[in-house]
């Protein structure tokens, strides 16, 4: 039997000591030789457990084999036939709980799985660096018109697939830039905005019109959309930040991660004053939560010059929902983790500025509805952390701007849109939905997958409707 190296082929990264002073990408990527070496670790399993672990079932052994054979055009073509945004997914997917989590190599004693995400990213970046973009042939005879609400991964994917099928597609995006969370949430050091812009430009080159500054339900009404289009896809995401609502929440220096990250990513506050939008610069920062959003917020605060950044999380390390790679990066950069700790009050000075966060220690009790052990406060364990900035990253809920303008749409008890998981069909004929607005805050790849399924269902719906006419 051939010997497989135990560990993933190391990948070049910016030194933690340097990268905490800049917003440049942390992971620098493989060279061709490194990528081929990593591709050689793949066993080409017949049962393909990795494929089953991928929410869009990418032919993983297939693209890896082509890469191993140095046939990069073929590798690209395989990837792109499943995934419209491989350069994004290679960077942000939680591979450890998807493809890599199922990889046979990873199940072998003392072995790390194949670095599938890093290979995906390598192939996608290789294609981008060729500078030639292959624009697929688009049928000139249009099959119908589709309106897409929201230019996040769900909406962009649905738009691209429908355009390729021959539909006239118009995206309505509330913000001034397309990309959704990819643009306003995930920071530059993890996902360079030039990559998102490149993908958005590709989708435009398919003939998709993107109408930014257009708030569906406000700048254009639902009945106008129904009149002008054969079908509507809603991908408005789960963009409204939740707050813990503890005393002192409105003190200056207390942010939602959404605001903090939007200022930095969408508004480029890290370039202030070259960019007009400011963000407060915290010296001692407390971040609440331990998901990807919390990692992004804490590492951004560090890059803005914070002297200390502490993550407080009411559960333990085991329940932490962040991507494992980001967690490791955060530790390398000096973020401190305070497990089983929950803020109960923000304390401010007489000018309304935050000066400290009062926390309480927690212990884990019986499992709750989510199956995770429920955190319970320990009486009398309150303590104070001095802080001039606190950032809450405890979750987001559905944005109501569209939903309140569309009362016919049936919602789930949690306030998301009720939609068929296979088609995205909502309670209203001709209206489909997918991504975070259906599932609640989830992942880029699930949003993309939902966009793809809905594109197919919309195609079938419009064709069957036109056949009847």
């Amino acid at each position: 039997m051939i010997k497989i190296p135990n560990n993933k082929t190391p990948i070049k990264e910016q030194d933690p000591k340097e990268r905490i002073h800049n917003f440049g990408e942390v992971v620098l990527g493989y060279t061709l030789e490194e990528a081929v070496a990593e591709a050689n670790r793949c066993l080409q399993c017949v049962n393909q457990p990795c494929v089953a672990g991928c929410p869009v079932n990418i032919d993983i052994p297939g693209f890896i084999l082509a890469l191993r054979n140095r046939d990069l055009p073929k590798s690209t073509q395989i990837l792109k036939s499943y995934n419209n945004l491989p350069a994004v997914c290679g960077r942000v997917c939680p591979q450890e709980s998807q493809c890599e989590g199922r990889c046979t190599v990873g199940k072998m004693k003392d072995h790390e799985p194949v670095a599938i995400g890093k290979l995906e990213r390598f192939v996608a970046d290789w294609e981008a660096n060729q500078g030639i973009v292959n624009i697929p042939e688009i049928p000139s005879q249009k099959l119908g018109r589709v309106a897409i609400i929201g230019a996040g991964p769900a909406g962009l994917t649905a738009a691209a697939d429908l355009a390729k099928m021959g539909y006239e597609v118009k995206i309505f995006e509330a913000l001034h830039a397309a990309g959704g969370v990819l643009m306003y949430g995930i920071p530059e050091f993890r996902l360079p905005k030039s990559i998102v812009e490149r993908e958005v430009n590709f989708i435009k080159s398919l003939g998709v019109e993107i109408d930014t500054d257009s708030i569906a339900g406000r700048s254009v009404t639902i009945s106008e959309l129904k009149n002008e289009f054969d079908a509507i896809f809603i991908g408005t995401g789960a963009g409204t930040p939740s707050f813990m609502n503890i005393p002192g929440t409105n003190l200056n220096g207390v942010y939602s991660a959404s605001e903090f990250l939007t200022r930095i990513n969408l508004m480029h506050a890290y370039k202030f004053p070259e960019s007009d939008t400011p963000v407060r610069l915290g010296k001692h920062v407390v971040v609440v939560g331990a998901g990807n959003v919390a990692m992004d917020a804490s590492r951004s605060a560090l890059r803005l010059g914070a002297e200390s950044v502490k993550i407080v999380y009411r559960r333990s390390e085991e329940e932490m929902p962040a991507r494992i790679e980001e967690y490791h990066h955060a530790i390398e950069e000096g973020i401190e983790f305070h497990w089983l700790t929950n803020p109960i009050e923000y304390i401010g000075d007489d000018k309304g500025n935050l000066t400290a966060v009062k926390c309480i220690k927690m212990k884990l009790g019986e499992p709750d509805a989510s199956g995770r052990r429920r955190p319970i406060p320990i009486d009398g364990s309150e303590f104070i952390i001095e802080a001039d900035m606190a950032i809450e990253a405890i979750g987001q809920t559905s944005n109501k701007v569209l939903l309140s303008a569309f009362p016919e749409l049936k919602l789930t008890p949690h306030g998301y849109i009720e939609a068929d998981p296979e088609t995205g069909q909502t309670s209203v004929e001709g209206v489909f939905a997918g991504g975070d607005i259906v599932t609640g805050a989830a992942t880029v790849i699930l949003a993309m997958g939902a966009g793809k399924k809905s594109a197919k269902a919309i195609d079938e719906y419009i064709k069957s409707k036109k056949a009847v006419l």
Partner: protein
Amino acid sequence: MFEITSKEKIATKEYEIWVKAPKVASHAKPGQFVVIRTSLNGERIPLTIADFNVEKGEIRLIFQAVGKTTYEMATMKVGDALQDVAGPLGHPSEIKKYGTVMMIGGGVGIAAILPILKELKRAGNKVITILGGRSADLVILKDECEKFSDELLVTTDDGSMGMKGVVTDGMKEIVKRGEKIDQAWSIGPTVMMKFSAYTAKELGIPIFVSLNPIMVDGTGMCGACRVTVGKNIRFACVDGPEFDGYEVNWDELMNRLRQYKDQEKISLENYMARVGDLSWL
């Protein structure tokens, strides 16, 4: 891009412009606002839709130059274009027949009170308007407001126009002479709204105020605009901007408006250093 089709100076450092924004114009209602950006590096700032013309697809914005973005807007010319105009945002004002309404506007807030009082007049209300300013030249849009008001009172701090005093003096004056007010609105500087809300409470008049916290997206996605109303945190951009004046935590709002004071100063100084003399504004 959103072209500026006309521009006029209406007071020291106060301007009105009409901007081409057909989608906003055709959906706007009194009490709503837009979020604009002057350029690619610009900040997103909220401005009230002071008027709109559906046929021409234009909206009217009235603003006071107070910082980088509004200074820059003041230097823009007819034919120039704003990078972004998004809206209409926020809940429209609740227009219906109340009976007698008291409309209080101060400073550039007069621009926000005007579309509401127009619509209230059309809905059959008796409209009593109080406009306040530090001095006569800062009382803007007086003639337009007068056209849609049954009565109009001006107060100035220095007495250079109308009654010497502040808007709350005007409010008390009108109630003292026996007028029964069914609903009031107050829009202007935060302190003015605070004290008119206190006075309205004393006088037993229900009052709406239009809050002006710092905003980013204006669509409920960030929480920058959060205010405390009663015991609850509300997002002014989607839950407001109008709220029951009795219930607002004013001191918190004023603190939050000062959040970026140092950076705002740097931004404006850099801008002035770049463009030179702006004393003409």
